[in-house]
């Protein structure tokens, strides 16, 4: 609150300074969370929220900074997950090269980045709702392809028996290590996006979002910049895919279905696309609801409840939870002297 008194700071400085305190509190809370959480809350809520937060973050990078709304982020994560299953070990007797994790993971991330760049290259010819449509088409096509292809994807049963690595004497699939693994990678992705948003490339991406025509007239190859953004988003989505397959021990077409694709979009929109923290907030809300809505309203209606919460948040605040916070904050900080807000 004390920093709200400074009147001569720009909005950006103010935003970052405020996050300075917020970041520390959040980090301490997240690190101490395992002390109070059961294994169920560590993995099914904590781990899952962080994984889906990373998926939402990859979408936030594209949509928030680049103005490109993608429904194919789960597809990219799925490609990394399949790559881990195929390059590493599984019990399906179809494919399985038995590579160690430290070799399989870089290749999985590379596959995800390349696949994402390809999806981007196809879809950057479109704008707005057409980008959503074309990525939805790609996500759906990949889903059906995986379901019907047995040579590579092993059809609708996919791959099972995938193990998370164990090193330094730690089984990384155990609740507490897995939570910290997710937390570490999520924080890394989050910090990279936050830092990158003010990098040269981050600025070019936001400028392309605001005015691609002008960017061409300044000497930028707009398509190349957009495709590079897709590749970077692909790495984050790929990381999430690796964590997902390690946690579940399996990957099948169901992992990359349209339901999951829409979940990622809902997470990003509920949380807010204006700041990389948004998707993580959205992920916590959606994961909590998906886990407990059944207890509240029963198996028949839990999707209705999720849909209604989505509608209410979007109706009250088009910027999601981030936007809500922006509205509540001035009432909390009465001494706020921030100019122009």
């Amino acid at each position: 609150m004390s920093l709200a008194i400074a009147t001569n700071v720009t909005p950006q400085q103010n935003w970052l300074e405020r996050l300075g305190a917020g970041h520390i509190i959040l980090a301490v809370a997240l690190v101490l969370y395992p002390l109070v959480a059961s294994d169920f809350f560590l993995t099914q809520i904590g781990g899952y929220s962080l994984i889906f937060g990373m998926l939402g973050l990859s979408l936030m990078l594209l949509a928030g900074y680049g103005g490109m709304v993608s429904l194919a982020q789960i597809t990219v994560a799925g490609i990394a997950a399949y790559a881990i299953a195929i390059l590493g070990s599984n019990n399906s007797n179809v494919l399985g090269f038995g590579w160690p994790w430290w070799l399989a993971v870089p290749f999985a991330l590379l596959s995800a980045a390349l696949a994402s760049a390809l999806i981007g290259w196809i879809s950057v010819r479109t704008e707005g709702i057409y980008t959503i449509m074309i990525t939805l088409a790609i996500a759906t096509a990949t889903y059906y392809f995986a379901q019907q292809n047995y040579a590579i994807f092993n059809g609708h049963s996919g791959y099972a028996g995938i193990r998370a690595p164990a090193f330094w004497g730690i089984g990384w699939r155990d609740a507490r290590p897995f939570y910290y693994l997710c937390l570490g990678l999520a924080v890394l992705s989050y910090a990279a996006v936050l830092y990158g948003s003010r990098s040269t490339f981050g600025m070019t991406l936001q400028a392309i979002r605001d005015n691609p025509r002008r960017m061409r007239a300044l000497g930028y190859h707009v398509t190349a910049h957009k495709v590079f953004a897709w590749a970077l988003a692909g790495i984050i989505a790929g990381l999430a895919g690796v964590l997902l397959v390690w946690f579940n021990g399996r990957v099948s077409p169901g992992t990359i279905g349209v339901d999951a694709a829409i979940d990622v979009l809902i997470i990003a929109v509920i949380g807010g696309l204006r700041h990389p923290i948004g998707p993580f907030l959205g992920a916590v809300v959606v994961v909590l609801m998906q886990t407990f809505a059944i207890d509240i309203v029963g198996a028949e209606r839990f999707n209705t409840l999720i849909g209604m919460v989505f509608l209410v948040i979007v109706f009250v605040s088009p910027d999601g939870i981030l936007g809500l916070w922006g509205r509540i904050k001035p009432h909390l900080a009465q001494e706020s002297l921030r100019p122009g807000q």
Partner: protein
Amino acid sequence: MTESFAANRLQSSGAYALELDGVARHFGALVALSGINMRIAAGERRAVLGSNGAGKTTLFNAVTGDFLPTSGRIRFFGEDITDLPPHERIRRGLRRTYQISQLFKGLSVLDSIFLACRGVSRRRFSLLRPAITDVNMVQAESILNAVHLEAYRDTLVATLSHGQQRQLEIALALAGAPRFILFDEPAAGLSPTERRDLVAILNALPKHIGYIIIEHDLDVALRVSEYVSMMHNGRLFKEGTPQEIEADPEVQEIYLGGKHG
């Protein structure tokens, strides 16, 4: 007639900055540009006048590559750029401004100019934050001063006034050592004071930088250009000094509506 004016000037100035040979642009049945032949020497400052719909902005779009001409060739400092994409033309030293400001509403003024400098430089894909000592950042600061926007260095572009946005338009075109600039009605919507500033900025440009300026205000055009080309219905129909154009009865009838003279 067009050719003879250009030929006279060629003898003194040497190479052409911009040459257009029979450039035409059709939109379906609409002929927006037709048989445009233009020779502009390096460092020359030319005004293009014409009523709305005369094809002035279409001419700019064809030169910058926003769309390709239906026929004809365009050469920039001797190089045929007709088929090059816009960003390649920009990297060769061509710049433009827009009639309606085309800015980055979510960025600050300094960051916008920085991107303009970086666009024709290296490390466009850098994932690092530019240091304050970055060569393009230093360039951006100096351009900021040149267009008198230093007080708005960190202001979000969306919150600038119309006049300031027009100044930023010009700043973006000045970034990165341009050789030739296309100004599309830079004075549109400016107050008399801001117009004087604009004239001062244009006249203070280094002499090697040539430009074409589309301008409705003959007062402004007269003070910032050496020659004037008149366009009408997609064609060039008259060229001359500002004084000759102003005094031309045909020009007065078509474009000025008899108000001047």
